[in-house]
């Protein structure tokens, strides 16, 4: 995974730069997400990995699938990846692209897991507090996870703020050992 990131970084950086120049980051983001899901599809990955399928056929196939979802620049990007044999990097490129985009727009993606459904007011209050703690705007994805028993668990990139009952119980288990 970390090795793939090294390979994918220049592609993602180039794509992002271009997207910014043409102020089409949102569009690029959508197309890359789409392409990533295409590559993850089993039927496609078999074809991509097959050495008997030559580059022209592969790029024709890819462009065919993506028709209507991508613009001319995206098509060129696909052709480049096919030419360099790097189609399998697409999911990583999409991920890195999102990171660049988030950095550029000054927000971070935050996953919040709660034991119970948030009410609207608590959510708003919580968002404000979390933004203060992290010092950045956040995009919050909230999910309910009953296994937490109570409280919340926040994941912002590598950072984890564990305020759940489950986490505290685990902590206590270790302390009592």
């Amino acid at each position, binding site marked *: *995974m*970390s090795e793939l*990131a*090294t390979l994918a970084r220049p592609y993602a950086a180039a794509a992002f730069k271009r997207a910014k120049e043409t102020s089409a980051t949102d569009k690029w983001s959508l197309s890359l997400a789409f392409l990533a899901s295409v590559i993850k599809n089993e039927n496609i990955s078999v074809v991509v990995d097959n050495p008997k399928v030559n580059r022209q056929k592969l790029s024709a196939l890819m462009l065919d699938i993506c028709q209507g979802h991508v613009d001319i620049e995206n098509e060129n990007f696909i052709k480049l990846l096919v030419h360099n044999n790097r189609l399998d990097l697409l999911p990583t490129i999409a991920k890195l692209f999102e990171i660049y985009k988030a950095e550029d727009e000054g927000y971070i993606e935050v996953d919040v897991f709660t034991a119970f459904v948030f009410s609207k007011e608590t959510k708003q209050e919580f968002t404000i507090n979390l933004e203060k703690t992290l010092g950045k705007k956040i995009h919050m994805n909230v999910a309910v996870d009953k296994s937490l028993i109570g*409280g919340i668990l926040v*994941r912002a*990139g*590598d*950072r*984890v*703020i*564990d*305020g759940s009952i489950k*986490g*505290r119980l685990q*902590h*206590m288990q*270790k*302390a*009592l*050992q």
Partner: protein
Amino acid sequence: MQLNPSEISDLIKKKIENFDLSAEAHTEGTVVSVTDGIVRVHGLSEAMQGEMLEFPGNTFGMALNLERDSVGVVVLGPYQHITEGDTVKCTGRILEVPVGEALLGRVVDALGNPIDGKGAINTTETAPIEKIAPGVIARQSVDQPVQLGLKSIDAMIPVGRGQRELIIGDRQTGKTAIAIDAIINQKGTGIKCIYVAIGQKRSSIANVVRKLEEHGAMAHTIIVAASASESAALQFIAPYTGCSMGEFFRDKGEDALIIYDDLTKQAWAYRQVSLLLRRPPGREAYPGDVFYLHSRLLERASRINAEEVEKLTGGKVKGKTGSLTALPIIETQGGDVSAFVPTNVISITDGQIFLESNLFNSGIRPAVNAGLSVSRVGGAAQTKIIKKLGGGTRLDLAQYRELAAFAQFASDLDESTRKQIERGQRVTELMKQNQYSPMSVAQMAVSLFAANEGFLDTVEVNKVLDFEAALQLYMKSEHSELMNNINATGDFNNEISSGLKAAIESFIKTHSW
């Protein structure tokens, strides 16, 4: 340790009372790969170099390689239960080990956990394993001796408190024996000893522990064991662990002696870790920082002045200096001291005790090569009487070495040359000493005095050791006052000189050897 149920519930209650229930914030990563104790972790963007990382199952690791997308971590201990996708947490701390008086008499592993079956170690203090050595201002020059209890070493290659003296030699030349004798001789001197066993057989370590127990030397000794069966990471950190335990005593104004047995194996362990971390190999496949590996460790052995001790103890200890003396051991292959690690450590230390297998095999034990062994700072620290009497020994042996080749033609040689050869043979014989029988300053002084004053010249070469043993017995029973006086002051003056002379002369009259 048996506890009754009410005690257990009390204990648990206390722990729960003190339990901190705030939300925990940390940085997390996921395991990407596990290979031979090296784990690559994705994420952990805030990990620090050398930071302790927490794996599932109460396992810890140390971050050694910080790369763009991943962190290279060595697992400290077993790693079989770690799998791809496990979460790894930052702890925000450098690796720490327990330190304190409670460790004395115990055998611990490289992380400070007891492995001698004597229960938990009762100490609350911990210290990071990696510390920067004391600065220039904090130091004081070496001027007090550490008596190793071996005639040949204390007379010719003296070691001072705070010195780093290398013990170097091939396998089976008695390197560990010198170290063990040194520990035994510290009984009652107040010098605390730490013996760090790196990459040795468990049986050898058990042997050392047993011998120290037999001679009552475990009470002032800590043994840090990272045996050959333990992971390379543990063998690599064991010397730092021992050093931190020794620094605890140094920093509170006491004296400590640490033995690293041996640093060659530590360098091997570090080489393994480095190669698995994909650091580029250099000479003999060691990584580029193998010099720093040993220099930062040995720099921590030092003598610090009273002001520094006062500062470190918060004013509790005043007017006392602290010291940590290091005796690193290096094993050479076929006597080759120009290999990478031996040259490094020779250049770092303040002198070396050079042991040779041919001397060992010809019965000269300890097999010290007096010509190649040096002590660069110990002379200033030597006890006066030993310094005075030992100088002659060194000279006698040096002259003898030059002439030894002519020993076969003894009849053709002139009188003075023959005398020098004969003196040299007797002094060489006198320098032999049995294992586990360290000598006091007074005992050494008697033996050296007898050699210097020529009392041995009339004794047959193969009777020298018998003569010495009988002389020591005689001195102990007939002149204990003189001996105690020498042990107490360490001075050498006319009174002591004439006292020794009279005593030895009266002993020779008894002809009892």
